[in-house]
């Protein structure tokens, strides 16, 4: 018991004694998608490390601390975690959580009432767009499904799939994007031959695959690779029910190649928030990520980096870690006018800001210009297998 008390006291003292800048980072460490979460967390840490390596925060070089907590993709855990971050750890802002449900719950329940800015890494639910009433505190570094679903529908038709079967995992992210996709695809003149949910994390999807497989050779698959997506894809390939696959960023992962094999994925295309090799910002990000051993094009990893880096820039630009001023400066640093800042260019940005200049961060995952709802439009790229690895190409 004594030990427990000591450790608790140590934590409290550690947090209150720090004159540094603290950013709360609730992530889905446990829960349904811990494997997707791990590289995103690494990207968040990498951003903080870049900031601290290049002179830290403010003129006196304060350390940027990432205070991590577990939101478990679960509203209960997220609300609890963010309550602690805001009240006990006294963080200046929240970067994260990963899942839309957790993001909305923590924002509505804790961070909006407390007046703290949330910049979500990967929450993509359309519900976030209209969530706020008269406040401007919730932003996200990932595009709403509404954008990606449309982009994907256009891509599907461009690839010549004028009929397609849709299978989506019955979770908040995939159900939302599937709905947008189906709507856009039909509006653009495509035919959806089957549209079925599948329960995540089942041992076998052969009957699902067979049921919808009779209708088309093309499958639009919305699933997390970590919670059944790989199994479904494997079942689809094994039974030969489908030949062409198309899907959103939940599936785009190196783990897919590792588990299924690049040779089996030659007819698969997945879109993701622009991880476009050709843009200078992605090149800059890829260089940093590769050096640190972070998988640069896994789902939402680039967004994780962007979110953290932008939050640091916003606090730096505001000149203080006071909660109230961050929202405004977050808009300022992310949008034109201003000198373009690429991922990793902290020292440069710091210098410009110190001189009273303006900056415009161009993120690894897109230009990150927030609209009035705090959403980003996002660019999208499609990834296909080239030489046994994912290769991205900008489509929008």
């Amino acid at each position, binding site marked *: 018991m004594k030990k*427990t008390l000591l*450790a*608790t006291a*140590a*934590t*409290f003292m*550690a947090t*209150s004694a720090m004159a540094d800048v603290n950013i709360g980072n609730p992530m889905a*460490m*446990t*829960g*349904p998608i*811990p494997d997707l*979460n*791990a590289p995103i*967390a*690494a990207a968040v*840490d990498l951003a903080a490390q870049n900031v601290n390596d290049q002179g830290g925060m403010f003129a006196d070089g304060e350390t940027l601390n990432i*205070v*991590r*907590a*577990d939101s*478990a*993709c*679960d*509203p*209960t*855990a997220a*609300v*609890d*975690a963010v*309550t*602690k971050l*805001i*009240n*006990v750890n*006294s963080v200046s802002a929240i970067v994260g959580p990963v*899942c*839309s*449900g*957790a993001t*909305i*719950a923590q924002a*509505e*329940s804790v961070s909006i*009432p*407390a*007046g703290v800015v949330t910049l979500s890494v990967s929450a993509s*639910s359309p*519900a976030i767009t209209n*969530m706020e*009433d008269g406040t401007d505190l919730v932003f996200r570094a990932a595009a709403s499904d509404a954008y990606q679903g449309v982009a994907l529908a256009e891509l599907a038709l461009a690839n010549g799939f004028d009929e397609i079967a849709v299978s989506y995992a*019955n*979770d*908040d992210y995939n*159900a*939302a994007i599937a709905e947008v996709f189906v709507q856009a695809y039909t509006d653009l003149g495509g035919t959806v031959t089957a549209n079925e*949910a599948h329960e995540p994390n089942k041992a076998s999807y052969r009957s699902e695959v067979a049921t919808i497989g009779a209708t088309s050779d093309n499958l639009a698959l919305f699933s997390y690779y970590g919670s059944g997506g790989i199994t479904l894809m494997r079942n689809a390939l094994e039974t030969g029910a489908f030949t062409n696959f198309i899907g959103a960023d939940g599936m785009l992962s190196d783990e897919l190649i590792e588990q299924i094999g690049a040779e089996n994925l030659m007819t698969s295309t997945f879109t993701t928030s622009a991880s476009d090799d050709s843009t200078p910002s992605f090149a800059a990000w890829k260089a940093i990520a590769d050096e640190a051993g972070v998988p640069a094009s896994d789902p939402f990893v680039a967004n994780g980096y962007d979110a953290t880096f932008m939050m640091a820039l916003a606090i730096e630009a505001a000149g203080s870690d006071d909660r109230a001023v961050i929202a405004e400066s977050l808009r300022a640093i992310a949008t034109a006018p201003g000198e373009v800042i690429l991922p990793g260019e902290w020292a440069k940005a710091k210098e410009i800001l110190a001189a009273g200049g303006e900056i415009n961060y161009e993120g690894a995952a897109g230009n990150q210009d927030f609209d009035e709802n705090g959403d980003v439009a996002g660019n999208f790229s499609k990834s296909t297998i080239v030489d046994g690895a994912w290769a991205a190409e900008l489509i929008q």
Partner: protein
Amino acid sequence: MEAYLGYFLYLLSLLTVGGIYAIFALGLNVQWGFAGLFNAGIVGFVAVGAYVYALLTTAESTFHIGGFGLPLPVGMAIAMAMAALIAGLIGLVCIRLRSDYLAIATIGIAEIIKLIFKNETDITNGPRGINKIPRAWEHFSEERFYSSAPMSWIATPEQWVAFFDSLPNWYWQPLFAGTILLVVFIIYKMLERARTSPWGRMMTAIRENEPASRAAGKDVTKRRIEAFVIGAAIMGLGGALFAQHLRLIEPTNTFDPSKVTFLVWVMLIAGGSGNNRGAILGAFLIWTIWSASELLIAGMIDVISAVFSTLDPSILATRAGFLRMMLIGILMQVILQRYPGGILPEVRPASPKAEKTVAGATGETK
């Protein structure tokens, strides 16, 4: 001073969530502690309460059915009634099952309830859930509340806006926590009265010896269903408050059986089943341990990584959440083995003292 306010607000949130769990634990205490019904489907009743409340009280929405914008207490009352109704139906068919059979059946039913909420997308918005659920007190500062009766009788909307602007942004937090504690207190009082009345004696009798209770004229089946329904109604009310606290509910992760059903069982067993005070104590204690253990483990990781500088703290950090679960599991085992009756074991109400009693008049007997 800012920091102390933060600690105060965290304390309030512990009381809020602990209070909600205390309501669940009290509901379970009626079922298990009083009547000996092994309900392992708590999460199902909680979900029913939460969803009914959410659908009835939210403003109209395109995402899910209705959004009927009913007053909060009405939503809570109907949430309770629906949970009770569903428990009644389940009780009619399942109540005669023996303990672990009932447990397995209720787990299965709770999962089916969750699947329905998840798949009937037109009604519940499916896996994306329902958000903007109104929370008591906080939402009186929302336009649809202050511009309608009864709040509009008291002051004009402009006056209300001015009034709410003058309050600190956390004004609702003590009020909400207080409301929940009040609900816990009322439920506690009612259950204590029921427990110490002939009703409680009869329930204990049924739990202790079924054939004898039948021979003593007790309709055992009906009484068990009664306890099941009362417990479920309390859980449904707790579910409605849970929805208020979270403000977003979705079927998969909010109502994860290991975080609702299991945690509530740990709370009741730790606190002392059959003892209402034990249920409440267990709920606050375990929730505080659960919530604070995150700070604790984060602190320990800092210490460990400071001592063993070669160790990569990020690996520890990614796995800290699992250690938390493990901690609860181990705590559970220790309590089960060391304190089989819980921290506050069950105490039968003092039976009226016989004047002629010579020995053994202890007043309270275990």
